[in-house]
């Protein structure tokens, strides 16, 4: 059973179409990164899964049930964006209140406070919390009742690099335990290693979905190679330019070549065998690059009927 299934989902607010026939599956224990610009339909998708909205058309199923099912809500964790909570309650009181509402064991409150590093601040009022602390309290709240499906909306906003890393570790840990996770955000630095698949939304349509490798293959974005300490630099540059790559000198004896992914290994082999470089750096297209690529494509062809997720998966 898939944790989440969306089939041909359309969402209209009045006359405005927010989602145009969205298909999305999330397997159990999978981490899906849902990326898109403001107004791309990320939040609407989240709300449909959370049962806060009724789809205008199409089918939404969460943990094999309707998203409006009370039992589903018990097994679901949600970290909203920019949550303020109740300023007059302390962190512990807030978490206790939500634990009672979710039917989570009271003992979990202190465990979670410990886990998100809020033990010292637990007896302070939430009013005095920084944005990052509120975010961590929100995360603890989402983990109450050990949910099977976790939806995190912009989870790293306001977190310092160390807390961000801790969050990603937690995501990895939960994934190993079989929790399905949807991570919704603008593109995040460093998120690549922690998601199983990425979905890119623009203008209410899925532009691409798949593992990063499959997205890289489909997008065929150039790879950048940097090598240092090459003896006959000019000769190499000439040769690469002749093969149709973009090559330029870099520093004293360095080069930078931009080439298609398919040519990467061949060129590396030659370079290692004959060029005797001191050092080589390979820059794969990052999630950022992929995101920008798909966004631009969506922007240039907004009239193009439907994105082909199958193509991206191939």
């Amino acid at each position, binding site marked *: 059973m898939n944790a989440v299934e969306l089939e041909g989902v359309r969402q209209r607010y009045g006359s405005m179409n927010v989602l145009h026939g969205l298909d999305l599956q999330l397997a159990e224990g999978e981490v899906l990164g849902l990326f898109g610009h403001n107004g791309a339909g990320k939040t609407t998708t989240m*709300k449909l899964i*959370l*049962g*806060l*909205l009724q789809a205008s058309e199409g089918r939404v199923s969460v943990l094999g049930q309707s998203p409006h099912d*009370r*039992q589903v*809500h*018990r097994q*679901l964790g*949600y970290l*909203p964006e*920019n*949550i*303020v*909570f*109740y300023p*007059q309650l302390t962190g512990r009181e807030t978490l206790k*209140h*939500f634990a*009672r*509402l*979710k*039917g989570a064991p009271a003992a979990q409150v202190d465990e979670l406070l410990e886990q998100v590093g809020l033990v010292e601040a637990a007896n302070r009022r939430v009013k005095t919390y920084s944005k990052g602390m509120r975010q961590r309290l929100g995360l603890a*709240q989402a983990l109450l009742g050990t949910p099977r499906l976790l939806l995190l909306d912009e989870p790293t906003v306001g977190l310092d690099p160390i807390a961000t890393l801790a969050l990603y570790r937690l995501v990895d840990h939960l994934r190993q335990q079989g929790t399905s996770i949807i991570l919704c955000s603008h593109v995040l630095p460093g998120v690549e290693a922690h998601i199983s698949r990425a979905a890119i939304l623009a203008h209410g349509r899925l532009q691409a979905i798949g593992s990063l490798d499959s997205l890289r293959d489909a997008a065929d974005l150039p790879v950048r190679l940097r090598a240092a300490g090459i003896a006959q630099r000019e000769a190499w540059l000439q040769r690469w330019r002749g093969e149709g790559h973009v090559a330029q000198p870099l520093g004293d004896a360095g080069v930078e070549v931009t080439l298609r992914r398919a040519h990467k290994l061949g060129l590396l082999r030659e370079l290692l065998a004959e060029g005797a470089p001191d050092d080589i750096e390979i820059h794969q297209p990052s999630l950022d690059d992929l995101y920008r690529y798909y966004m631009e494509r969506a922007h240039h062809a907004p009239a193009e009927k439907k994105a082909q997720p199958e193509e991206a998966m191939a």
Partner: protein
Amino acid sequence: MNPIWNIARKELSDGLRNRWIVAIGLLFAVLAVGIAWLGAAASGQVGFTSIPATIASLTSLATILIPLIALLLAYDAIVGEDEGGTLMLLLTYPLGRGQLLLGKFVGHGLILALATLLGFGAAALAIAVLVDGVALDLLFRAFGRFMLSSALLGWVFLALAYVLSSRASEKSRAAGLALGVWFGFVLVFDLVLLALLVLGEGRFSPELLPWLLLLNPADIYRLINLSGFEASGGVSGVMALGSELPLPSVMLWGCLMLWVGGALLLAYALFRRRAA
């Protein structure tokens, strides 16, 4: 545990924490004692006069105060949660909208009931202890009826506050609407009724006019408390109409409860339509 009680519990502990209960209770106690002893000052007397006079004065004051307090307590119940981002979160919990609303009502309702009981109850005790020769059974019956109907009046305006709160998109707007509702029921309604009476010059069916009082919960409340005494003398203005109303007081209580139920249902209907 029951989700309704979990929500109510938080409201109740909020009420204790920000001292709403204590403040309202104290206000009621001071007013009640003050009116009991000084109410007759205008006629040159200082000291407790009579139970009917005390209840009549208290009623006119409570008619103004209780709706205001109830509206203040509850106007941000829904829209406030929405602005803080917790409404959306709560709706992803295993908790229905009806349960959320009812939980708020139980919590706020208990706050008001407790404050009423503590405040006016203390005043009644003070009268019983300090005034010689007061008819205790009459005193406690009158104050009992007064406290119960005061709580009920508060609940009506709590429910009306939820109607506004479910409807309003911003807290400040809900506050403005609450003030409007208070003004309308407590001041404008009676003036309009009087104007109808005067300008109509008897063209309105005299049987119909008293029934219009039932359209205002504050007037029902006054009728309940003033009709309890045969010759109260405190009855004036539109309340005089009430004496022509062929309704037993049980029906008046029923009408007040109908107001609570109706307003709650309306609030629920509006809350259901509110986008998360």
